[in-house]
């Protein structure tokens, strides 16, 4: 109960009036009025359909919405869901909202939900982010059931994605997490996931929750903490993940949230990952991962140009991070024309591992290290697009699998440079 101190009195009062629950759904929001109504309705229908006898509550942790999102959550009456799906509720399903800050911070939102779950002694919890969610009632049940009815501590989603969506996941986060921790977790950075009350309380106590952590990718930190704690992890197929349009400027914040969190997890978990070899499947409900192939307009030329400019302009920064041979090889490929340009898997893995070691040694500001990786990632993304331009879904999967094996094969190199080369 030590974590209750940062919750407002009003929120605490509302939680106390709810009492204990079996299932808790956390909704971190910020100006999500357009989507939140349908998501809350889906959640209510999902609970009424699949968990009619369980005590449940919806907790909205809002980061200062100005479009009335919290009001929409609180006012979404369970009767609406009942009427639309002809279901009968055996229990009430309270929806509570709290504003944790005037600006959004994923970490603080998660902390609020975890603290609420601990106070309500929830057995199973799910976090659903309206930013990315296309959650269905079956999807919600598939996330919660293994935690509530079986003995899983964390259930992460898998999706049917466009082959060129989530390139940072397929080219860095998934292969590196898999190589280091030995588990084939397809979405280590998940915006919808379910977890046990025990894991939630454990993370609530162990995570430092300082200002930096509140901004960093608390979702991936949660996954990594579950792995480090030896918790039982599963996956559940959630259907198609819609393509989200992004600006190129979104890459650096995304890398800070995910790659930064992954790199910083390596230090405290060195004892866990340095001895592991190979990787194993984790229990998955439904497909492990599917790729769709419809055409997508991507400015490949711009990706390569930004890589080339980055390699030329950031030479002084790379000299502090990369080995001379890696830098020389990057400079060589940066000089190749568009047709011959290729950022091979081996060089990409070597680059990422050298960045991870440089991050560990803090050779320069850690945030600068993550920023310096962004132009190189664009080069790798260009190669990934070219290699899979005409490939089938299986070809893409094989390409990703090949990269994963390369990460696993070169893991001794990371261990060698971890404490070795200055």
């Amino acid at each position, binding site marked *: 109960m030590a974590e209750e101190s940062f919750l407002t009195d009003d929120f605490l009062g509302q939680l106390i009036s709810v009492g204990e629950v079996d299932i808790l759904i956390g909704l971190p929001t910020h100006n999500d009025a357009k989507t939140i109504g349908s998501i809350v309705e889906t959640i209510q229908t999902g609970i009424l359909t699949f968990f009619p006898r369980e005590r449940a509550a919806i907790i909205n942790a809002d980061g200062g919405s100005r479009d009335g999102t919290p009001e929409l959550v609180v006012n979404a009456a369970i009767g609406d869901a009942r009427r639309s799906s002809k279901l009968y509720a055996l229990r009430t399903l309270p929806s509570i909202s709290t504003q944790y800050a005037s600006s959004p911070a994923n970490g603080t939102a998660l902390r609020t939900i975890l603290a609420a779950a601990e106070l309500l002694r929830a057995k199973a919890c799910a976090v659903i982010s309206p930013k990315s969610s296309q959650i269905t009632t079956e999807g919600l049940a598939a996330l919660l059931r293994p935690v509530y009815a079986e003995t899983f501590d964390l259930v992460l989603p898998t999706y049917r994605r466009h082959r*060129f*969506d*989530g*390139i*940072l*996941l397929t080219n860095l986060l998934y292969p590196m997490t898999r190589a280091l921790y030995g588990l084939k977790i397809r979405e280590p*950075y998940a915006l919808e996931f379910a977890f046990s009350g025990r894991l939630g309380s454990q993370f609530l106590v162990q995570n430092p929750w300082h200002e930096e952590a509140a901004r960093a990718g608390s979702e991936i930190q949660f996954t990594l903490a579950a792995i480090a704690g030896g918790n039982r992890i599963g996956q559940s197929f959630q259907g198609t993940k819609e*393509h*989200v*349009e*992004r*600006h*190129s*400027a*979104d*890459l*650096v914040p*995304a*890398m800070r949230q*995910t790659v930064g969190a992954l790199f910083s997890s390596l230090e405290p978990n060195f004892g866990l990952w340095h001895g592991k070899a190979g990787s194993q499947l984790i229990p998955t409900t439904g497909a492990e991962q599917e790729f769709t192939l419809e055409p*997508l*307009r*991507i*400015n490949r030329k*711009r*990706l390569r*140009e*930004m890589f080339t*400019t*980055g390699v030329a*302009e*950031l030479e002084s*920064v790379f000299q*502090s991070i990369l080995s001379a041979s890696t830098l020389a090889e990057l400079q060589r490929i940066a000089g190749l024309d568009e047709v011959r340009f290729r950022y091979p898997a081996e060089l990409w893995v070597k680059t990422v591992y050298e960045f991870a070691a440089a991050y560990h040694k803090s*050779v*320069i*500001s850690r945030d*600068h290290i993550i*920023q*310096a990786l*962004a*132009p190189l*990632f664009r080069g790798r*993304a260009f190669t990934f697009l070219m290699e899979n331009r005409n490939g089938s879904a299986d070809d893409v999967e094989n390409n990703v699998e090949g990269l994963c094996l390369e990460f696993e094969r070169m893991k001794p190199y990371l261990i060698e440079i971890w404490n070795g080369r200055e």
Partner: protein
Amino acid sequence: MREMIINELTQAMQELTRGFAHILPRIIVLVIIAFAGWVVAYLLKVLLRSFLRLIKFDKLSESAGASQLLSKAALPSATELLSRFVFWVAWLGFILLGISVLGIFGFQEQIAKFFLFLPRIFAALLIMFFGLLAAGFFSRAALLAAVNANLPSPRLLSVSIRTIIIIFVLSMVFEEVGVAEETVLVAFGIAFGALMLGLAIAFGMGGKDLAQRFLEKRFGQGRRDEGKEDELSPL
């Protein structure tokens, strides 16, 4: 006459002996203080060197860009330089303390001035070091941000920021040690003003098209189009 001469000589010798007897213990004290000072200064140097190595001060100095400056000036590493500096300042302090024991007229005032000046030197060195550190950090931050935002001439932007900060730091250092305060202030004002004016003219006139493209990209239609072109979703 002879007796007078002998008396005077004896008196002079006695005075000399008295003077010598008067100054000799003080010289001995000076030597002892100087020797003790050397031991203390040497110990300080060794301790400081070990401490700086422990906190990887050379690495910090390298990232601040100070190591490159020292290397160009054929000076030893930042750790070694700072250790030697502390050694000499400490030993010189002890020697001057010893000299003050001799009671030489007017010298004590100079020694007092020297001791009063020491904190200002330390402050100037600190300003210099942290200034270089800030210059290195902010110029690198600007370089990375410019590269990731695909802005033109990122290195020029980075070097400009570094130069401005270093000019600012140097003017602060000179002001702190009291060297040509007014000249430095005026020179800084002129240099800084000229740099800003130059940048404004260069950006507004010379880079008219570039400025137009930049502003369009930043606030206008260009940005929306550019975003749509790059539909890569990393997560």
